[in-house]
């Protein structure tokens, strides 16, 4: 008789309003993909991908609050750090492995990128760009180490944080045999066409990465 499903009223999710770099990442994900989001936070991106792109998503998140928020959204999430979380997955378990705004905080970025490209066919990363002209001017004129525009954290607010630019990252990828495929550049959340000046004009970059064949 009663054919309604049993979802409690308190779990009906709000329409997703995503951070701009997460929206850019979502644009790089194809419908139906299997996706792993490492450092998935409250699961906003995975929920969006599930609801809009029928993605089969999994998350790894360190904080209890983040894991609880993900479970509340009906997501599959494991508590753990990036390193130990990735090691368990067999090769090519996912179409894409996502790492958003986490690169500056990693102990061993090369290891993590290599693991992402072992576990996934592609990797999608987003990061704040310290090569932006305002960062350059800040150091030149104030003598202060710049705070990234899209990651407004002071140097003392996090146990470790590496500063790097789009150019640094591109060079790093070449060194470890990783190819940058699709690229989206944002300036304070707005997508920009940058031509040659991407490192100068973008505050955040979003890349799809592949293993160089």
């Amino acid at each position: 008789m009663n054919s309604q499903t049993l979802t409690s009223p308190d779990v009906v999710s709000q329409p997703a309003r995503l951070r701009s770099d997460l929206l850019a990442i979502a644009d790089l994900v194809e419908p139906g993909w299997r996706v792993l989001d490492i450092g998935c936070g409250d699961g906003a991106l995975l929920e969006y991908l599930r609801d809009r792109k029928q993605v089969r998503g999994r998350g790894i998140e360190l904080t209890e609050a983040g894991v609880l928020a993900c479970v509340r959204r009906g997501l599959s999430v494991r508590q753990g750090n990036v390193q130990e979380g990735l090691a368990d997955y067999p090769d090519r378990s996912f179409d894409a492995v996502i790492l958003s705004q986490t690169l500056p905080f990693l102990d061993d970025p090369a290891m993590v990128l290599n693991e992402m490209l072992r576990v996934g066919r592609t990797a999608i990363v987003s990061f704040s760009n310290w090569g932006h002209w305002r960062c350059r001017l800040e150091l030149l004129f104030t003598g202060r180490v710049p705070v990234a525009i899209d990651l407004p954290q002071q140097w003392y607010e996090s146990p470790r944080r590496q500063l790097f630019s789009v150019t640094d990252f591109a060079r790093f990828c070449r060194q470890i045999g990783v190819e940058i495929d699709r690229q989206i550049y944002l300036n304070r959340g707005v997508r920009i066409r940058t031509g040659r000046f991407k490192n100068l004009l973008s505050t955040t970059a979003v890349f799809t990465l592949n293993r160089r064949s």
Partner: protein
Amino acid sequence: MTTNTVGAVSTQYFTFAEDEPFCLESGESLSPVTLAYETYGALNADRSNAILICHALSGSAHAAGYLDGDPTKLGWWEDCIGPGKAFDTDRFFVICSNVIGSCYGSTGPASIDPGTGKPYGLNFPVVTVGDMVRAQVKLIDHLGIDQLLCVAGGSMGGMQVLEWAAHHPQRVHSAIPIATTAHHSPMLIAFSEVGRQAIYADPAWNHGAYYDQPQKPDAGLAVARMVGHITYLSEESMQVKFGRRLQGLEKYGYEFDTEFEVESYLKYNGHKFTRRFDANSYLYVTKAMDYFDLTQPTGSLAAAFADSTHVKFLVISFTSDWLYPSYHSKQLVSALTAAGVDVTYLDVKSSWGHDAFLLEVDTMTNLLGSFLDRLVREEHVTAPAGYIPHARVTPATTTALARTQLADNLA
């Protein structure tokens, strides 16, 4: 106490293996076998909303409500099972059965051996967690349920959950093992053995033949329970519960009477346990746990779940649980991930030790409730007739510290 209860309940009994004996892993067999069980809520039209709850070492089928209407006889997981609670009895058909080998109505060493007309005692065959679960499979068959929406339980209940998922995967959609392990560690076996040695050492135990004696091995069983209670707590929870406080004394008496609160607590609970549990059952059930090892026979835990890739897991551990430490659950999660299983995992921050699984009700309600909501959505589970949607409730009237008193009675 708590609101939103299933109210008065009564235990039911299911007997099987009357003609054909029930074969056990040891090679021995039992005939007949009775299982005591309780159910709460109603089955939906296609019988797809059934949840099996598995109890821990000294638990019973009475998981929720008031037994025979007696408000003092509260179910052992009353905080999580009931209308609007984590296991919402308005939406789900919840089943809990007493394990074989126990003493709450299911066949165990205190049952009458039909061969002799006397209680089995040590003639009762040794049972395993695998045997306990195969008996539960018979019950689920009897109830006409093809597939359980979920199997959930903590501690030894969690072992049964893992057994279901590994060896009866076609019968379950999801599994929630809580504060448990896939292989009983040497430390756990050691604690089991201390408990058993305490019972053996009691002259009244009489090699298990005490049922017709005036004296029961209460002293031994009480010591076994005291050891158990220590392992269910944490150093921090003992500090909070007892500190170094004295029981009814101003200063040290320099004598061997009970002086510290913690001594009094252990003595009281050890003694109280003897009024509700059978010493032989304690031997059998702890032995069953000791044999539990899903890494056998292949040596690989991932291999144990090779056929379980469709089962959705929610694994929960607690940071201060040193009896079933978090790394046991993490090993399980790693193995499940390697096997390609969909697994959600949280190591809940708690200072209550192993008992936390009965005490961290708010977090548990969040986790269990949301996970079950997801299952309902993904498995298209319909509501039983007459269901009116409502928000989830968390019993907010009790603090974790107050709940510890309840847990002492029920763990």
